[in-house]
Protein backbone atom coordinates (compact mmCIF):
# COMPACT_ATOMS: atom_id res chain seq x y z
CA UNK A 1 0.00 0.00 0.00
CA UNK A 2 2.62 2.48 1.13
CA UNK A 3 6.32 2.23 0.61
CA UNK A 4 8.75 4.94 1.59
CA UNK A 5 12.39 4.51 0.74
CA UNK A 6 15.10 6.68 2.15
CA UNK A 7 12.74 9.63 2.53
CA UNK A 8 14.20 12.85 3.90
CA UNK A 9 12.49 16.15 4.55
CA UNK A 10 14.52 19.27 5.09
CA UNK A 11 12.98 22.65 5.73
CA UNK A 12 14.85 25.83 4.75
CA UNK A 13 17.29 23.76 2.83
CA UNK A 14 20.63 25.45 2.45
CA UNK A 15 19.81 28.28 4.81
CA UNK A 16 21.16 29.04 8.22
CA UNK A 17 17.96 27.86 9.87
CA UNK A 18 17.89 24.56 8.01
CA UNK A 19 15.90 21.90 9.84
CA UNK A 20 15.85 18.22 9.07
CA UNK A 21 12.41 16.88 9.92
CA UNK A 22 12.77 13.37 8.53
CA UNK A 23 15.95 11.37 8.10
CA UNK A 24 16.18 8.43 5.71
CA UNK A 25 12.77 7.02 6.48
CA UNK A 26 12.16 3.51 5.19
CA UNK A 27 8.61 2.44 5.81
CA UNK A 28 6.24 -0.07 4.35
CA UNK A 29 2.58 -0.27 5.32
CA UNK A 30 0.57 -3.06 3.81
CA UNK A 31 -3.07 -2.75 2.79
CA UNK A 32 -5.43 -3.46 5.68
CA UNK A 33 -2.94 -2.54 8.37
CA UNK A 34 -3.73 -0.25 11.24
CA UNK A 35 -0.62 1.64 12.19
CA UNK A 36 0.00 4.22 14.84
CA UNK A 37 2.91 6.62 14.76
CA UNK A 38 3.97 8.07 18.08
CA UNK A 39 6.77 10.28 19.16
CA UNK A 40 7.55 13.51 21.00
CA UNK A 41 6.63 16.92 19.66
CA UNK A 42 8.89 17.98 16.84
CA UNK A 43 9.89 14.44 16.01
CA UNK A 44 8.49 14.72 12.48
CA UNK A 45 5.17 12.89 12.88
CA UNK A 46 3.05 15.52 11.18
CA UNK A 47 5.61 15.98 8.43
CA UNK A 48 5.53 12.27 7.75
CA UNK A 49 1.74 12.31 7.69
CA UNK A 50 1.67 15.25 5.29
CA UNK A 51 4.00 13.40 2.97
CA UNK A 52 1.86 10.28 3.18
CA UNK A 53 -1.20 12.44 2.46
CA UNK A 54 0.46 13.95 -0.62
CA UNK A 55 0.15 17.38 0.92
CA UNK A 56 3.88 17.78 1.11
CA UNK A 57 6.81 16.44 -0.85
CA UNK A 58 9.91 14.79 0.49
CA UNK A 59 13.20 16.52 -0.14
CA UNK A 60 14.65 13.21 -1.27
CA UNK A 61 13.71 9.55 -1.42
CA UNK A 62 10.83 7.79 -3.10
CA UNK A 63 7.20 7.28 -2.19
CA UNK A 64 5.20 4.44 -3.68
CA UNK A 65 1.48 4.59 -3.01
CA UNK A 66 -0.89 1.83 -4.11
CA UNK A 67 1.60 0.75 -6.70
CA UNK A 68 2.13 4.23 -8.12
CA UNK A 69 5.31 6.25 -7.79
CA UNK A 70 4.30 9.58 -6.28
CA UNK A 71 7.57 11.36 -6.92
CA UNK A 72 7.34 13.17 -10.21
CA UNK A 73 3.55 13.28 -10.29
CA UNK A 74 1.89 16.55 -11.21
CA UNK A 75 -0.12 18.55 -8.74
CA UNK A 76 -3.32 17.50 -10.46
CA UNK A 77 -2.44 13.79 -10.36
CA UNK A 78 -1.69 14.00 -6.67
CA UNK A 79 -4.92 15.91 -6.12
CA UNK A 80 -6.87 13.09 -7.75
CA UNK A 81 -5.25 10.51 -5.50
CA UNK A 82 -5.96 12.64 -2.47
CA UNK A 83 -9.52 12.97 -3.59
CA UNK A 84 -10.24 9.32 -4.40
CA UNK A 85 -7.95 7.18 -2.33
CA UNK A 86 -7.09 9.18 0.76
CA UNK A 87 -9.08 10.32 3.71
CA UNK A 88 -7.58 12.83 6.09
CA UNK A 89 -8.71 13.51 9.65
CA UNK A 90 -7.32 16.33 11.70
CA UNK A 91 -7.31 17.28 15.34
CA UNK A 92 -9.19 20.46 14.53
CA UNK A 93 -11.40 18.56 12.13
CA UNK A 94 -10.77 20.83 9.15
CA UNK A 95 -14.41 21.55 8.52
CA UNK A 96 -15.99 24.55 6.87
CA UNK A 97 -18.05 25.80 9.77
CA UNK A 98 -20.34 27.81 7.56
CA UNK A 99 -21.54 24.64 5.82
CA UNK A 100 -23.80 21.96 7.19
CA UNK A 101 -22.53 18.54 8.16
CA UNK A 102 -23.75 16.93 4.97
CA UNK A 103 -22.32 19.72 2.82
CA UNK A 104 -18.94 19.18 4.42
CA UNK A 105 -19.12 15.48 3.75
CA UNK A 106 -20.11 16.11 0.16
CA UNK A 107 -17.03 18.16 -0.56
CA UNK A 108 -14.73 15.38 -1.84
CA UNK A 109 -17.51 13.98 -4.00
CA UNK A 110 -18.26 17.33 -5.53
CA UNK A 111 -14.59 17.80 -6.23
CA UNK A 112 -14.61 14.38 -7.83
CA UNK A 113 -17.40 15.57 -10.09
CA UNK A 114 -20.20 13.41 -8.74
CA UNK A 115 -23.73 14.47 -9.46
CA UNK A 116 -25.42 16.35 -6.67
CA UNK A 117 -27.99 13.64 -5.95
CA UNK A 118 -25.43 10.86 -5.88
CA UNK A 119 -23.14 12.92 -3.72
CA UNK A 120 -25.93 13.64 -1.30
CA UNK A 121 -26.84 9.96 -1.02
CA UNK A 122 -23.26 8.91 -0.44
CA UNK A 123 -22.83 11.63 2.15
CA UNK A 124 -25.95 10.45 3.95
CA UNK A 125 -24.61 6.91 4.02
CA UNK A 126 -21.29 8.10 5.39
CA UNK A 127 -23.00 10.12 8.09
CA UNK A 128 -25.15 7.11 8.94
CA UNK A 129 -22.02 5.00 9.31
CA UNK A 130 -20.62 7.40 11.85
CA UNK A 131 -23.97 7.74 13.61
CA UNK A 132 -24.75 11.32 12.69
CA UNK A 133 -27.75 11.00 10.43
CA UNK A 134 -29.89 13.23 12.55
CA UNK A 135 -27.35 16.04 12.45
CA UNK A 136 -26.84 16.22 8.73
CA UNK A 137 -28.50 19.60 8.27
CA UNK A 138 -26.80 21.26 11.19
CA UNK A 139 -23.90 23.58 10.66
CA UNK A 140 -20.76 22.00 11.98
CA UNK A 141 -20.09 25.00 14.18
CA UNK A 142 -23.07 23.92 16.27
CA UNK A 143 -21.90 20.37 16.78
CA UNK A 144 -19.90 19.05 19.71
CA UNK A 145 -16.23 18.15 19.32
CA UNK A 146 -16.95 14.45 19.05
CA UNK A 147 -19.69 15.05 16.50
CA UNK A 148 -17.46 17.26 14.42
CA UNK A 149 -14.80 14.61 14.52
CA UNK A 150 -17.31 12.12 13.21
CA UNK A 151 -18.26 14.49 10.40
CA UNK A 152 -14.60 14.66 9.43
CA UNK A 153 -14.45 10.84 9.50
CA UNK A 154 -17.52 10.69 7.28
CA UNK A 155 -15.87 13.08 4.89
CA UNK A 156 -12.70 10.97 4.92
CA UNK A 157 -14.53 7.78 4.00
CA UNK A 158 -17.27 9.13 1.75
CA UNK A 159 -15.29 8.75 -1.46
CA UNK A 160 -14.23 5.21 -0.62
CA UNK A 161 -10.74 6.00 0.57
CA UNK A 162 -8.32 3.10 0.79
CA UNK A 163 -6.13 4.89 3.29
CA UNK A 164 -7.24 6.97 6.27
CA UNK A 165 -4.65 9.31 7.74
CA UNK A 166 -5.43 10.83 11.10
CA UNK A 167 -3.29 13.53 12.66
CA UNK A 168 -3.77 13.71 16.44
CA UNK A 169 -7.44 12.82 15.96
CA UNK A 170 -8.27 12.50 19.64
CA UNK A 171 -6.32 15.49 20.87
CA UNK A 172 -9.43 17.61 21.32
CA UNK A 173 -11.75 14.84 22.45
CA UNK A 174 -12.68 13.51 25.86
CA UNK A 175 -12.00 9.87 26.65
CA UNK A 176 -15.49 8.74 25.66
CA UNK A 177 -15.37 10.48 22.30
CA UNK A 178 -11.82 9.22 21.80
CA UNK A 179 -13.04 5.70 22.45
CA UNK A 180 -15.85 6.18 19.94
CA UNK A 181 -13.35 7.41 17.41
CA UNK A 182 -11.11 4.39 17.81
CA UNK A 183 -14.10 2.15 17.55
CA UNK A 184 -14.96 3.70 14.22
CA UNK A 185 -11.38 3.40 13.00
CA UNK A 186 -11.20 -0.20 14.05
CA UNK A 187 -14.46 -0.89 12.24
CA UNK A 188 -13.15 0.71 9.08
CA UNK A 189 -9.95 -1.24 9.35
CA UNK A 190 -11.90 -4.45 9.69
CA UNK A 191 -13.58 -3.55 6.42
CA UNK A 192 -10.21 -3.40 4.71
CA UNK A 193 -9.36 0.28 5.02
CA UNK A 194 -5.74 0.98 5.88
CA UNK A 195 -5.47 3.34 8.83
CA UNK A 196 -2.48 5.43 9.90
CA UNK A 197 -2.85 7.43 13.08
CA UNK A 198 -0.42 9.96 14.49
CA UNK A 199 -0.98 10.43 18.18
CA UNK A 200 0.42 11.11 21.62
CA UNK A 201 -2.36 9.17 23.25
CA UNK A 202 -1.11 5.85 24.59
CA UNK A 203 -4.60 4.44 24.96
CA UNK A 204 -5.17 5.05 21.29
CA UNK A 205 -1.75 3.71 20.37
CA UNK A 206 -2.29 0.51 22.29
CA UNK A 207 -5.38 -0.30 20.26
CA UNK A 208 -3.38 -0.49 17.04
CA UNK A 209 -1.73 -3.66 15.88
CA UNK A 210 1.42 -1.96 14.72
CA UNK A 211 3.19 0.90 16.43
CA UNK A 212 5.99 3.03 15.06
CA UNK A 213 7.97 5.45 17.14
CA UNK A 214 9.50 8.50 15.57
CA UNK A 215 12.31 10.33 17.33
CA UNK A 216 14.26 13.20 15.81
CA UNK A 217 13.02 12.34 12.36
CA UNK A 218 13.97 8.71 12.54
CA UNK A 219 11.89 5.61 13.08
CA UNK A 220 13.04 3.78 16.17
CA UNK A 221 12.65 0.04 15.90
Amino acid at each position, binding site marked *: MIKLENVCKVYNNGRANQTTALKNIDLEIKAGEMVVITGPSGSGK*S*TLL*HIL*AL*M*DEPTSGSYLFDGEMISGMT*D*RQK*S*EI*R*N*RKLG*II*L*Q*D*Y*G*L*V*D*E*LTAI*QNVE*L*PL*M*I*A*GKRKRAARMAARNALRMVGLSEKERQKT*SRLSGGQRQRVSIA*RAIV*AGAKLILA*DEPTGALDSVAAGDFMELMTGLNRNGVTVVIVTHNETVANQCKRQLRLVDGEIIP
Partner: protein
Amino acid sequence: MVKRIKMATMLYSPFLIKELFFGAQVFLMVVLLMVVIVPVTNVISEYDQMERLYGQDIDRLIYYTQIDTGIGQTETKDLDIRFASWLESGCLEKTYRNQMVRAKMGEDTEQITMLIYSEQLFLDTEFQLIGRLPAFDLTTESWGLNEEAYPMIISEDLAVDYPPGSEMLLKMDCNRCKEEHSEIRGLVVGILKRDSMISYIGKGGGNYDYLGRLGVNTLAFGREKMVIGVYDERYFHKEDWNGAAVFSVAESVDRKELLAQMNAEVGVEGRIVGTDDLYRNSMDKVIQDAEAERLLVILFAVVFVVDFWGYILMSIRKKGHLYAILFMCGWSKREALIVNLVSVVMIVFPAVCLGLYMAPLASEFILREGFQGYTWHIYPIICGLFLMTMLCGVLTAFARQRNLNVVTQYREGI
Protein backbone atom coordinates in the same frame (compact mmCIF):
# COMPACT_ATOMS: atom_id res chain seq x y z
CA MET B 1 -15.37 23.96 -15.06
CA VAL B 2 -19.12 24.38 -14.58
CA LYS B 3 -18.98 21.93 -11.72
CA ARG B 4 -16.11 23.84 -10.21
CA ILE B 5 -18.07 27.08 -10.45
CA LYS B 6 -21.13 25.44 -8.91
CA MET B 7 -19.03 24.13 -6.11
CA ALA B 8 -17.37 27.46 -5.56
CA THR B 9 -20.80 29.07 -5.42
CA MET B 10 -21.92 26.54 -2.84
CA LEU B 11 -18.76 27.00 -0.86
CA TYR B 12 -18.87 30.76 -0.79
CA SER B 13 -22.58 31.32 -0.41
CA PRO B 14 -22.44 30.98 3.40
CA PHE B 15 -19.78 33.68 3.43
CA LEU B 16 -21.91 36.15 1.52
CA ILE B 17 -22.98 38.28 4.46
CA LYS B 18 -19.47 38.43 5.80
CA GLU B 19 -18.12 39.30 2.42
CA LEU B 20 -20.70 42.05 2.11
CA PHE B 21 -19.52 43.44 5.41
CA PHE B 22 -16.06 43.47 4.05
CA GLY B 23 -17.25 45.07 0.83
CA ALA B 24 -18.97 47.79 2.81
CA GLN B 25 -15.76 48.35 4.69
CA VAL B 26 -13.77 48.73 1.52
CA PHE B 27 -16.42 51.03 0.09
CA LEU B 28 -16.35 53.30 3.10
CA MET B 29 -12.60 53.36 3.06
CA VAL B 30 -12.59 54.52 -0.52
CA VAL B 31 -15.16 57.21 0.15
CA LEU B 32 -13.22 58.37 3.15
CA LEU B 33 -10.06 58.46 1.18
CA MET B 34 -11.49 60.41 -1.69
CA VAL B 35 -13.75 62.79 0.21
CA VAL B 36 -11.69 63.53 3.24
CA ILE B 37 -8.11 62.55 3.13
CA VAL B 38 -7.10 63.63 -0.32
CA PRO B 39 -8.52 67.15 -0.10
CA VAL B 40 -7.34 67.56 3.45
CA THR B 41 -3.86 66.55 2.52
CA ASN B 42 -4.04 68.95 -0.33
CA VAL B 43 -5.20 71.75 1.86
CA ILE B 44 -2.43 71.17 4.31
CA SER B 45 0.05 71.16 1.51
CA GLU B 46 -1.29 74.44 0.30
CA TYR B 47 -1.42 75.80 3.76
CA ASP B 48 2.22 75.00 4.26
CA GLN B 49 3.10 76.75 1.09
CA MET B 50 0.94 79.70 1.89
CA GLU B 51 2.49 80.00 5.27
CA ARG B 52 5.93 79.78 3.79
CA LEU B 53 5.28 82.30 1.11
CA TYR B 54 3.41 84.68 3.28
CA GLY B 55 5.89 84.37 6.04
CA GLN B 56 8.67 85.30 3.71
CA ASP B 57 6.84 88.37 2.61
CA ILE B 58 7.12 87.44 -1.00
CA ASP B 59 5.52 89.55 -3.67
CA ARG B 60 3.36 86.85 -4.94
CA LEU B 61 -0.26 86.20 -5.06
CA ILE B 62 -1.34 83.09 -3.45
CA TYR B 63 -4.62 81.84 -2.39
CA TYR B 64 -5.96 79.26 -0.15
CA THR B 65 -8.83 76.99 -0.89
CA GLN B 66 -10.64 74.62 1.29
CA ILE B 67 -12.29 71.26 1.25
CA ASP B 68 -15.43 72.35 -0.46
CA THR B 69 -13.64 73.77 -3.40
CA GLY B 70 -11.88 70.49 -3.40
CA ILE B 71 -8.77 71.43 -5.11
CA GLY B 72 -6.16 74.03 -5.08
CA GLN B 73 -4.60 75.07 -8.26
CA THR B 74 -3.01 78.10 -9.59
CA GLU B 75 -1.08 78.84 -12.65
CA THR B 76 1.72 79.92 -10.44
CA LYS B 77 4.49 77.53 -11.10
CA ASP B 78 5.84 77.38 -7.63
CA LEU B 79 2.59 76.16 -6.20
CA ASP B 80 1.78 72.54 -6.19
CA ILE B 81 -0.79 71.56 -8.75
CA ARG B 82 -1.23 68.22 -7.29
CA PHE B 83 -4.89 67.67 -7.63
CA ALA B 84 -5.69 69.38 -10.83
CA SER B 85 -5.82 66.05 -12.54
CA TRP B 86 -8.38 64.89 -10.07
CA LEU B 87 -10.59 67.76 -10.99
CA GLU B 88 -10.01 67.43 -14.67
CA SER B 89 -10.59 63.72 -14.62
CA GLY B 90 -14.19 64.50 -13.87
CA CYS B 91 -14.23 63.22 -10.34
CA LEU B 92 -16.01 66.36 -9.32
CA GLU B 93 -17.85 66.84 -12.51
CA LYS B 94 -21.13 67.67 -10.94
CA THR B 95 -19.71 69.89 -8.32
CA TYR B 96 -20.26 73.15 -10.01
CA ARG B 97 -18.69 75.08 -7.28
CA ASN B 98 -15.47 73.64 -8.37
CA GLN B 99 -15.80 74.92 -11.84
CA MET B 100 -12.54 76.35 -12.79
CA VAL B 101 -12.62 79.03 -15.32
CA ARG B 102 -9.82 80.55 -17.11
CA ALA B 103 -10.49 84.03 -18.23
CA LYS B 104 -8.47 85.61 -20.87
CA MET B 105 -8.37 89.19 -21.66
CA GLY B 106 -8.90 90.17 -25.22
CA GLU B 107 -6.55 88.66 -27.70
CA ASP B 108 -3.64 88.83 -25.42
CA THR B 109 -4.33 85.45 -23.99
CA GLU B 110 -0.82 84.63 -23.00
CA GLN B 111 -0.31 87.68 -20.97
CA ILE B 112 -3.11 87.41 -18.54
CA THR B 113 -4.56 84.38 -17.05
CA MET B 114 -7.13 84.38 -14.41
CA LEU B 115 -8.49 81.57 -12.44
CA ILE B 116 -11.83 81.65 -10.90
CA TYR B 117 -12.76 79.35 -8.16
CA SER B 118 -16.17 78.99 -6.74
CA GLU B 119 -18.01 82.16 -7.19
CA GLN B 120 -15.72 84.64 -5.77
CA LEU B 121 -12.07 83.91 -6.02
CA PHE B 122 -10.05 85.33 -8.74
CA LEU B 123 -6.43 85.61 -9.23
CA ASP B 124 -4.04 87.05 -11.63
CA THR B 125 -0.81 85.24 -11.18
CA GLU B 126 1.02 87.91 -13.03
CA PHE B 127 -0.31 90.57 -10.73
CA GLN B 128 -1.70 92.42 -13.60
CA LEU B 129 -5.34 92.21 -13.05
CA ILE B 130 -7.61 91.97 -10.19
CA GLY B 131 -11.20 91.67 -10.97
CA ARG B 132 -14.35 90.06 -10.13
CA LEU B 133 -16.02 87.68 -12.45
CA PRO B 134 -19.39 86.08 -12.32
CA ALA B 135 -19.97 82.62 -11.12
CA PHE B 136 -21.66 79.62 -12.49
CA ASP B 137 -25.30 79.82 -11.58
CA LEU B 138 -26.47 76.54 -10.16
CA THR B 139 -30.12 77.27 -10.76
CA THR B 140 -29.85 78.21 -14.40
CA GLU B 141 -26.71 76.22 -15.05
CA SER B 142 -25.28 79.13 -16.90
CA TRP B 143 -22.64 81.65 -16.25
CA GLY B 144 -24.14 84.42 -14.26
CA LEU B 145 -23.31 87.19 -16.61
CA ASN B 146 -25.29 90.32 -16.85
CA GLU B 147 -25.47 93.12 -19.26
CA GLU B 148 -23.37 95.47 -17.29
CA ALA B 149 -19.67 95.59 -17.30
CA TYR B 150 -18.05 94.19 -14.26
CA PRO B 151 -15.95 96.54 -12.26
CA MET B 152 -12.33 95.63 -12.47
CA ILE B 153 -9.35 96.79 -10.57
CA ILE B 154 -6.22 96.42 -12.55
CA SER B 155 -2.61 96.75 -11.74
CA GLU B 156 -0.63 99.71 -12.83
CA ASP B 157 1.11 97.67 -15.50
CA LEU B 158 -2.10 97.52 -17.41
CA ALA B 159 -3.17 101.02 -16.73
CA VAL B 160 -1.38 102.31 -19.80
CA ASP B 161 -3.63 100.37 -22.08
CA TYR B 162 -6.65 100.38 -19.87
CA PRO B 163 -7.08 103.62 -18.02
CA PRO B 164 -9.84 103.91 -15.50
CA GLY B 165 -13.16 104.09 -17.22
CA SER B 166 -12.11 101.96 -20.16
CA GLU B 167 -13.54 98.58 -20.90
CA MET B 168 -11.77 95.30 -21.34
CA LEU B 169 -13.11 92.19 -22.94
CA LEU B 170 -12.73 89.03 -20.99
CA LYS B 171 -13.16 85.72 -22.66
CA MET B 172 -14.00 82.90 -20.40
CA ASP B 173 -13.62 79.31 -21.11
CA CYS B 174 -14.03 76.25 -19.01
CA ASN B 175 -10.76 74.70 -18.19
CA ARG B 176 -12.24 71.23 -18.22
CA CYS B 177 -14.22 71.14 -21.42
CA LYS B 178 -11.93 73.64 -23.09
CA GLU B 179 -14.87 75.33 -24.71
CA GLU B 180 -15.32 79.01 -24.63
CA HIS B 181 -18.40 79.88 -22.71
CA SER B 182 -18.82 83.55 -22.86
CA GLU B 183 -17.36 86.96 -23.05
CA ILE B 184 -17.84 89.57 -20.47
CA ARG B 185 -17.01 93.19 -20.33
CA GLY B 186 -14.88 94.51 -17.59
CA LEU B 187 -14.99 98.14 -16.61
CA VAL B 188 -11.76 99.44 -15.21
CA VAL B 189 -12.65 101.27 -12.10
CA GLY B 190 -9.36 101.41 -10.38
CA ILE B 191 -5.67 100.82 -10.47
CA LEU B 192 -3.52 99.28 -7.87
CA LYS B 193 0.16 99.88 -7.67
CA ARG B 194 2.11 96.72 -7.98
CA ASP B 195 3.87 97.11 -4.69
CA SER B 196 0.69 97.82 -2.90
CA MET B 197 -0.08 94.17 -2.85
CA ILE B 198 1.71 91.46 -1.12
CA SER B 199 -0.62 88.61 -1.07
CA TYR B 200 -4.04 87.53 -1.81
CA ILE B 201 -5.67 85.10 0.47
CA GLY B 202 -9.08 83.82 -0.19
CA LYS B 203 -10.75 81.04 1.55
CA GLY B 204 -13.67 80.37 -0.67
CA GLY B 205 -16.96 79.75 0.95
CA GLY B 206 -15.26 79.27 4.23
CA ASN B 207 -15.01 82.98 4.56
CA TYR B 208 -18.68 83.11 5.14
CA ASP B 209 -18.09 81.67 8.50
CA TYR B 210 -15.54 84.17 9.61
CA LEU B 211 -15.80 87.11 7.38
CA GLY B 212 -18.87 86.57 5.34
CA ARG B 213 -21.02 88.05 8.01
CA LEU B 214 -19.57 91.31 7.00
CA GLY B 215 -20.40 90.65 3.42
CA VAL B 216 -16.91 90.07 2.30
CA ASN B 217 -15.88 86.83 0.82
CA THR B 218 -12.57 87.54 -0.68
CA LEU B 219 -9.67 89.32 0.74
CA ALA B 220 -6.70 90.94 -0.68
CA PHE B 221 -4.12 91.99 1.77
CA GLY B 222 -2.12 95.04 1.02
CA ARG B 223 1.45 95.40 1.89
CA GLU B 224 2.04 96.68 5.36
CA LYS B 225 -1.24 98.36 5.84
CA MET B 226 -3.76 97.70 3.25
CA VAL B 227 -6.36 95.06 3.06
CA ILE B 228 -8.78 95.13 0.26
CA GLY B 229 -12.02 93.31 0.28
CA VAL B 230 -14.43 92.81 -2.51
CA TYR B 231 -18.06 92.75 -1.82
CA ASP B 232 -20.23 89.88 -2.70
CA GLU B 233 -23.37 90.88 -4.46
CA ARG B 234 -25.31 88.25 -2.69
CA TYR B 235 -24.79 90.18 0.47
CA PHE B 236 -24.55 93.67 -0.82
CA HIS B 237 -26.83 95.27 -3.26
CA LYS B 238 -25.57 96.93 -6.31
CA GLU B 239 -25.92 100.35 -4.85
CA ASP B 240 -23.48 99.37 -2.15
CA TRP B 241 -20.93 98.33 -4.62
CA ASN B 242 -17.94 100.49 -4.77
CA GLY B 243 -15.80 98.27 -6.83
CA ALA B 244 -13.42 97.95 -4.01
CA ALA B 245 -13.38 98.77 -0.41
CA VAL B 246 -10.86 98.91 2.30
CA PHE B 247 -11.79 96.06 4.39
CA SER B 248 -9.42 95.67 7.18
CA VAL B 249 -6.49 97.68 8.22
CA ALA B 250 -3.91 97.53 10.90
CA GLU B 251 -4.64 99.45 14.05
CA SER B 252 -1.72 101.70 13.47
CA VAL B 253 -2.85 102.82 10.08
CA ASP B 254 -4.33 106.20 9.66
CA ARG B 255 -7.60 105.27 8.15
CA LYS B 256 -8.36 108.59 6.62
CA GLU B 257 -5.03 108.62 4.92
CA LEU B 258 -5.57 105.11 3.76
CA LEU B 259 -8.94 105.92 2.35
CA ALA B 260 -7.49 108.82 0.51
CA GLN B 261 -4.74 106.63 -0.78
CA MET B 262 -7.23 104.06 -1.90
CA ASN B 263 -9.28 106.68 -3.56
CA ALA B 264 -6.26 107.91 -5.41
CA GLU B 265 -4.89 104.52 -6.34
CA VAL B 266 -8.02 102.57 -6.93
CA GLY B 267 -10.13 105.39 -8.11
CA VAL B 268 -13.10 104.48 -6.06
CA GLU B 269 -14.28 105.32 -2.67
CA GLY B 270 -13.55 102.73 -0.12
CA ARG B 271 -14.54 102.23 3.38
CA ILE B 272 -13.12 100.50 6.34
CA VAL B 273 -15.22 97.77 7.72
CA GLY B 274 -12.82 95.98 9.97
CA THR B 275 -9.40 95.90 11.41
CA ASP B 276 -6.45 93.65 11.19
CA ASP B 277 -7.68 91.77 14.20
CA LEU B 278 -10.29 90.21 12.04
CA TYR B 279 -7.64 89.04 9.69
CA ARG B 280 -5.58 87.69 12.52
CA ASN B 281 -8.52 85.86 13.96
CA SER B 282 -9.28 84.45 10.62
CA MET B 283 -5.75 83.30 10.13
CA ASP B 284 -5.65 81.81 13.59
CA LYS B 285 -8.74 79.88 12.75
CA VAL B 286 -7.23 78.75 9.49
CA ILE B 287 -4.15 77.54 11.29
CA GLN B 288 -6.17 75.76 13.93
CA ASP B 289 -8.26 74.07 11.30
CA ALA B 290 -5.26 73.04 9.32
CA GLU B 291 -3.68 71.56 12.40
CA ALA B 292 -6.89 69.76 13.22
CA GLU B 293 -7.04 68.39 9.71
CA ARG B 294 -3.46 67.32 9.98
CA LEU B 295 -4.29 65.32 13.08
CA LEU B 296 -7.22 63.80 11.28
CA VAL B 297 -5.00 62.75 8.44
CA ILE B 298 -2.65 61.05 10.86
CA LEU B 299 -5.57 59.38 12.59
CA PHE B 300 -7.00 58.08 9.37
CA ALA B 301 -3.63 56.94 8.21
CA VAL B 302 -3.30 54.87 11.37
CA VAL B 303 -6.79 53.47 10.93
CA PHE B 304 -6.07 52.58 7.36
CA VAL B 305 -2.88 50.81 8.17
CA VAL B 306 -4.24 48.92 11.14
CA ASP B 307 -7.55 48.07 9.59
CA PHE B 308 -6.23 46.92 6.26
CA TRP B 309 -3.36 45.07 7.80
CA GLY B 310 -5.86 43.31 10.01
CA TYR B 311 -8.07 42.54 7.10
CA ILE B 312 -5.28 41.25 4.93
CA LEU B 313 -4.07 39.00 7.71
CA MET B 314 -7.53 37.68 8.38
CA SER B 315 -8.32 37.30 4.75
CA ILE B 316 -5.20 35.29 4.19
CA ARG B 317 -6.02 33.08 7.11
CA LYS B 318 -9.62 32.68 6.15
CA LYS B 319 -8.77 31.91 2.58
CA GLY B 320 -5.98 29.72 3.81
CA HIS B 321 -8.51 27.74 5.79
CA LEU B 322 -10.77 27.14 2.83
CA TYR B 323 -7.83 26.65 0.57
CA ALA B 324 -6.45 24.02 2.88
CA ILE B 325 -9.71 22.15 3.12
CA LEU B 326 -10.22 22.19 -0.62
CA PHE B 327 -6.65 21.12 -1.11
CA MET B 328 -7.02 18.35 1.39
CA CYS B 329 -10.20 17.12 -0.23
CA GLY B 330 -8.66 16.92 -3.63
CA TRP B 331 -8.50 20.26 -5.35
CA SER B 332 -5.25 21.20 -6.94
CA LYS B 333 -3.41 24.19 -5.57
CA ARG B 334 -4.15 26.21 -8.67
CA GLU B 335 -7.86 25.55 -8.60
CA ALA B 336 -8.22 26.44 -4.96
CA LEU B 337 -6.14 29.55 -5.42
CA ILE B 338 -8.13 30.78 -8.40
CA VAL B 339 -11.44 30.37 -6.61
CA ASN B 340 -10.18 32.22 -3.60
CA LEU B 341 -8.78 35.05 -5.67
CA VAL B 342 -11.99 35.37 -7.64
CA SER B 343 -14.01 35.51 -4.46
CA VAL B 344 -11.91 38.39 -3.16
CA VAL B 345 -11.90 40.29 -6.44
CA MET B 346 -15.66 39.92 -6.79
CA ILE B 347 -16.12 41.80 -3.55
CA VAL B 348 -13.30 44.28 -3.63
CA PHE B 349 -13.62 45.46 -7.20
CA PRO B 350 -17.29 46.50 -7.05
CA ALA B 351 -16.75 48.06 -3.64
CA VAL B 352 -13.88 50.18 -4.91
CA CYS B 353 -15.79 51.18 -8.03
CA LEU B 354 -18.84 52.09 -6.01
CA GLY B 355 -16.70 54.04 -3.59
CA LEU B 356 -15.07 55.98 -6.40
CA TYR B 357 -18.46 56.70 -7.88
CA MET B 358 -20.00 57.77 -4.60
CA ALA B 359 -17.13 59.92 -3.41
CA PRO B 360 -17.92 62.87 -5.70
CA LEU B 361 -21.60 62.56 -4.89
CA ALA B 362 -20.81 62.62 -1.22
CA SER B 363 -18.60 65.59 -1.79
CA GLU B 364 -21.35 67.33 -3.69
CA PHE B 365 -23.81 66.56 -0.94
CA ILE B 366 -21.54 68.13 1.58
CA LEU B 367 -21.22 71.20 -0.58
CA ARG B 368 -24.88 71.48 -1.35
CA GLU B 369 -25.80 71.20 2.26
CA GLY B 370 -23.54 74.06 3.02
CA PHE B 371 -20.97 72.16 4.96
CA GLN B 372 -18.10 74.35 4.24
CA GLY B 373 -14.84 72.71 4.99
CA TYR B 374 -12.97 73.77 8.07
CA THR B 375 -16.12 74.24 9.98
CA TRP B 376 -17.37 72.02 12.71
CA HIS B 377 -20.08 70.72 10.42
CA ILE B 378 -17.72 68.43 8.64
CA TYR B 379 -16.61 66.63 11.74
CA PRO B 380 -19.83 64.76 12.48
CA ILE B 381 -19.72 63.43 8.94
CA ILE B 382 -16.13 62.38 9.28
CA CYS B 383 -16.78 60.84 12.65
CA GLY B 384 -19.85 59.06 11.30
CA LEU B 385 -17.93 57.58 8.43
CA PHE B 386 -15.13 56.70 10.77
CA LEU B 387 -17.43 54.91 13.19
CA MET B 388 -19.20 53.07 10.40
CA THR B 389 -15.88 51.94 9.06
CA MET B 390 -14.75 50.75 12.41
CA LEU B 391 -18.06 48.99 12.97
CA CYS B 392 -17.74 47.18 9.67
CA GLY B 393 -14.20 46.27 10.56
CA VAL B 394 -15.19 44.88 13.92
CA LEU B 395 -18.08 42.90 12.48
CA THR B 396 -15.86 41.51 9.78
CA ALA B 397 -13.25 40.60 12.32
CA PHE B 398 -15.73 38.78 14.51
CA ALA B 399 -17.23 37.03 11.56
CA ARG B 400 -13.88 35.70 10.52
CA GLN B 401 -12.39 34.94 13.86
CA ARG B 402 -13.92 31.51 13.97
CA ASN B 403 -12.10 30.51 10.86
CA LEU B 404 -8.66 31.05 12.22
CA ASN B 405 -8.06 28.02 14.35
CA VAL B 406 -7.54 25.41 11.70
CA VAL B 407 -5.14 27.25 9.54
CA THR B 408 -1.95 26.48 11.30
CA GLN B 409 -2.67 22.81 10.89
CA TYR B 410 -2.46 23.15 7.17
CA ARG B 411 0.16 25.72 6.66
CA GLU B 412 3.04 23.35 6.21
CA GLY B 413 1.01 21.19 3.91
CA ILE B 414 0.01 24.11 1.79
